[in-house]
């Protein structure tokens, strides 16, 4: 795979506070995150000429951002419809717009009042934006089956039955994310410690998933600015480049129940392409930011991006491997499970800050390459390999 994206750089990152109750509109949150990212990059927002707005229909659109950021000429805007995999997939759209010469500065932003508006489990809202909505409406919703926690619990259950993966192993993911959030003042769960006993005692939502297997609901905004390497050199920070980028979709993309191989997801196809572009493999990654909508999805994505063999993920997450100081620190910010749910844009922001060496007590020493995954809808996937300036 041609290494076509490596001169594309992330030069600015910005986020609002992550709260339960922002008392601000989605548009306000998006604009605040975008302005913070511009300030971090050292550009004026009017210089942006490409915008990749949130994929949720209720959030800010490109025109909202153009008007409020005083963008003079918006040459490109598009939305990657891969649910939670959209944030990483939008880096691919940004790269295409930059490599082609169409744009100079591209903004990718996520903003949501996920807590205040409770969009995450609203079946009627979700079904309207899902792939295969005719199947969801006719063959799933009438049976009381309509939310992500249910779709993915079926996959988790199958893995647990087939490979002996345990609730305690799922709990190891939740505990590692919480431990990292305890080191991150920006995290919603910064001040709250979590024990295995508390994890195991949390109330069931859709078994095998209990409350503490599920990501947070968050109000907030998160944004990045991308540009080309020649422009990046003149900006404030050492650039973080896009060594590899890919999106992937599995067989039976419109129906999870009838997918032959339930564990094969979009990431199964995207990760090898992203690694191939970077000329690197999983063993070369200094950390990984994995889209942790639920605990088992971390195990599944570590397997499907070849950090460990299929079926071994439960054991892989158990020995401290995924904690800071382990062989592969995962979600050093606390992830969607304990930092906040910004649809994975916060995973990209954390990877950039790690590669710049800005993470203080949670800094991964000598971080040079970080893998970032996205997961969305019925298992759509995206993968990025980010490279620090010191690599």
């Amino acid at each position: 795979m041609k290494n076509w994206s490596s001169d594309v750089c992330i030069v600015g990152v910005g986020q609002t506070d992550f709260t339960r109750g922002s008392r601000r509109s989605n548009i306000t949150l998006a604009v605040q995150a975008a302005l913070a990212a511009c300030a971090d990059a050292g550009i004026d927002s009017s210089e942006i000429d490409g915008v990749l707005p949130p994929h949720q229909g209720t959030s800010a659109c490109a025109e909202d951002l153009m008007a409020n950021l005083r963008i003079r000429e918006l040459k490109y805007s598009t939305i990657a419809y891969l649910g939670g995999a959209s944030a990483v997939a939008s880096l691919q759209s940004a790269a295409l717009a930059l490599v082609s010469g169409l744009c100079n500065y591209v903004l990718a932003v996520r903003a949501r009042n996920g807590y205040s508006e409770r969009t995450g489990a609203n079946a009627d809202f979700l079904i309207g934006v899902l792939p295969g909505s005719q199947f969801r409406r006719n063959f799933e919703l009438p049976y009381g089956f309509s939310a992500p926690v249910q779709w993915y619990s079926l996959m988790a259950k199958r893995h647990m039955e087939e490979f002996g993966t345990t609730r305690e192993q799922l709990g190891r993911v939740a505990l590692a994310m919480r431990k990292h959030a305890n080191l991150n003042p920006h995290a919603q769960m910064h001040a709250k410690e979590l024990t295995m006993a508390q994890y195991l005692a949390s109330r069931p939502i859709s078994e095998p998933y209990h409350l503490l297997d599920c990501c947070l609901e968050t109000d907030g905004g998160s944004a990045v600015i991308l540009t080309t390497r020649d422009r990046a050199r003149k900006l404030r920070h050492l650039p973080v480049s896009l060594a590899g980028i890919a999106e992937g979709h599995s067989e039976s993309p419109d129906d999870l129940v009838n997918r032959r191989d339930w564990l094969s997801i979009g990431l199964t196809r995207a990760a090898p392409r992203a690694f191939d572009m970077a000329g690197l493999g999983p063993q070369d990654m200094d950390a990984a930011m994995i889209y942790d909508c639920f605990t088992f999805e971390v195990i599944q994505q570590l397997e499907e991006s070849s950090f460990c063999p299929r079926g071994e993920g439960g054991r892989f997450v158990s020995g401290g491997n995924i904690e800071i100081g382990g062989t592969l620190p995962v979600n050093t910010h606390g992830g969607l499970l304990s930092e906040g749910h910004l649809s994975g844009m916060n995973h990209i922001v954390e990877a950039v800050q790690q590669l710049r060496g800005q993470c203080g007590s949670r800094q991964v020493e000598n971080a040079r390459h970080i893998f970032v995954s996205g997961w969305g809808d019925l298992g759509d996937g995206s993968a990025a390999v980010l490279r620090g300036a010191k690599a």
Partner: protein
Amino acid sequence: MSAVRPLPTVDYLDHKPFWDATRSGKIMVQKCTACGAVRFPPRPACTKCGSLDVEWVELDAKGHLYSWTVTHVAMNPYFADAVPYAVVVVELAGGEGIRMLGRLAGADPGALHLGLPMRAVFEEIDERVTLVNWKPEPKPRP
């Protein structure tokens, strides 16, 4: 419970023969007349060979348990009084791997395990709609 029960749109053109069949206690799926592959859920084109030519064939209303979840929190207000309930995925016998999702009928979720033989239970909602749920096959008498 004032919430409206979510029911399938049984006259959705691609799916209509399936819902017509459940009313008489049958499971019908699409079969490609070009390559012979059967498929579900119903789509316009064959996922194996791409042909648009199709007939509908009946499958035995039985299979084995592929996975399940026990839902404790209603995601749609209609099901608030039904929780906790189990949703099962059954792989149909003789269906080339076709799977269907429905509610567990008349059994304790604690007794479920992968591969458990299952049989369809047709739940008539009204004159237009019959849903398909699943129960474990009764054990054969020794």
